[in-house]
């Protein structure tokens, strides 16, 4: 069975012959090619080559067409800042104040060379791996995108504003980010992505209250996913267990959980409606050895792998730069070890 069938089977809550494993390796291709992170991301050929080498090295189930999770801001005129040993972060905000909002139109991803490069990456990966390995695209979800365009503080301030001031601004802003997100995700799917991950950090219980999630984030993500013509993975990048009962309505096939979420409980709540992925601690993994990593994976597999509906991975957004090769190998190898033990024990 190849990776794509394995993943499709688990999404349908059936047990594949082996549990799918998707370590989110966005930066590590730079190491394989001996390039700086900035240089690595500057050409789509680098990422295609890097993802191919990573696949040959670890043998996991998917490749990633997006360089990192914040590139969407370049579509709005925001600027990124690069680091030597970690992912880029927002350097210059695209929006200065809410008073500019009337002048802002939904930008087209086609106006951003960075985003066009990502489409070329996905096309290249699709040529090599379509139907064999899962090709993953991603975008920032519309409720969280404003915090990266104007800053988290102004976004929180707006959430608490009087309704008369808040509603017109929020409607306009969310309409812009929703339309951008839909067209950007559909372009990635057209280019060859099998799934798109929607990263929604601000919509998690870490950041907002349940009533705010229900009022703003939930209807928005439902509308967005409804208009995306393909499979969507929802990644709250924060604690989601308190809202997990609401997730089956959104229309995504899979959700990525953080290590604090009780993954077993979440899977029980979502059973048959949405699969779960996760949720190794992606900071502690930096100082685990391969035995600890392997044991953590086996514990997780014992808890949630039986019955399908599970993909082994770390919590979002990615595996840090400093994570050792042997720990990444340990993650990928653990599914084989677990499967052997399971087959042996009948």
């Amino acid at each position, binding site marked *: 069975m190849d990776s794509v069938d394995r993943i499709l089977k688990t999404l349908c809550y059936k047990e594949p012959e082996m549990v799918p494993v998707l370590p989110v390796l966005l930066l590590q291709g730079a190491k394989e090619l001996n390039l700086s992170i900035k240089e690595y991301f500057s050409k789509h050929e680098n990422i295609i080559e890097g993802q191919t080498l990573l696949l040959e090295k670890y043998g996991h189930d998917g490749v990633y067409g997006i360089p990192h999770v914040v590139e969407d801001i370049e579509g709005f005129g925001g600027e990124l*800042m690069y*680091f*030597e*040993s*970690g*992912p880029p*972060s*927002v*350097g210059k905000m695209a929006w200065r104040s809410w008073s500019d909002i009337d002048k802002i139109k939904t930008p087209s991803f086609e106006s951003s060379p960075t985003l066009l490069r990502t489409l070329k990456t996905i096309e290249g990966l699709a040529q090599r791996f379509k139907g064999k390995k899962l090709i993953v695209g991603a975008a920032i979800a519309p409720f969280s995108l404003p915090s990266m365009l104007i*800053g*988290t*503080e102004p976004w*929180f301030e707006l*959430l*608490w504003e009087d309704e008369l001031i808040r509603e017109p601004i929020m409607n306009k802003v969310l309409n812009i980010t929703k339309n951008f997100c839909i067209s950007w995700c559909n372009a990635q799917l057209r280019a060859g992505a099998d799934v798109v991950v929607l990263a929604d950090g601000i919509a998690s*219980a*870490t*950041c*907002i*209250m349940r009533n*705010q999630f229900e009022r703003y984030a939930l209807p928005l993500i439902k509308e967005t996913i409804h208009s995306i013509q393909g499979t969507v993975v929802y990644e709250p990048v924060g*604690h989601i267990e308190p809202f997990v009962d609401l997730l089956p309505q959104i229309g995504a096939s899979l959700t990525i959980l953080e*290590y*604090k979420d009780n993954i077993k409980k979440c899977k029980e709540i979502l059973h048959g409606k949405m699969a779960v992925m996760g949720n190794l*601690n*992606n*900071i*502690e993994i*930096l*100082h685990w050895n391969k035995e600890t990593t392997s044991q953590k994976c086996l514990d997780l597999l014992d808890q949630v792998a039986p019955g399908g509906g599970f993909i082994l991975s770390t919590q979002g957004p990615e595996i*840090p*730069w*400093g994570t050792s090769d042997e720990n990444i190998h340990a993650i990928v190898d653990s599914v084989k070890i677990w499967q052997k033990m399971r087959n042996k024990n009948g």
Partner: protein
Amino acid sequence: MDLELLYSKFYQSLKEERYLDAKNLIYQAHQQGMPAGHILVKLVNRALDQMQKSVQTHSVLAVDLSAESKKYFESLVAADRNGARQVVDEALKNQISPTDILHKILTPAMDDIGRLQSKEEISLAQIYLASKTTEEILEKLISLMPSKPQGIGKILLGSAFGDYHSMGRKLVGAFLRFYGFDVIDLGMSVPNEKFVEYALKENVNIIFVSALLLHTAEHLRGLKQMLTERKLHHVKLVAGGAPFNFDKDLYKRLGCDATAPHGIAAVNVAKELLGKKL
């Protein structure tokens, strides 16, 4: 004896439950020729009235302030900024002193917000609103106090070099200021040299560094080394931010003295490092 002085002594005796002294004062007044009717009206009835009023005032004050604190807390949790402001405005209108409002209304409410945060039962957006609102009210109360309260320690605050995230740092700053620390906030992406320069210049007790990204958190190792090289052993280094919440021992590996996952923990850590009562 002067009637007012006599009354004052009589009232004080009753208040302190020295009933024999009170009885002797009545006897003394009678001996000095004060008519029994006068003694009853000018001393006994007057003292009893005053005691009753005092009991009422005290119980009303005690009940109301804790009830007002609860109202304030509930407004913060419900994200009702105007409700919180109204509680404080009403208290000021009722002649409650700014100091009492700070200690008996705001502080218990913020203690409870901190407890919710420790248990992760409150969202970041609620904490943001609670601290912003309370900080704004605190500034108003301090302006109404006869003198600015003395700081209990000097803290240098900043985001690690290369880190352009502000919210966590500002929330920690708001909590530290609220609980009485003098805070110098150096802002985003602070080079280690600048932390050391200010630590020397401002004679600070603690440096708090916030980092949302793992690779920016790594700068703390260098900062600790610089503090040691400059013989600033007395300056404590505290780390905060997402990587430290995900890995509870990361701060030790980077050489920091402590970590604080949120505002109220930052206050407790700061007090502990300075040997203050928690």
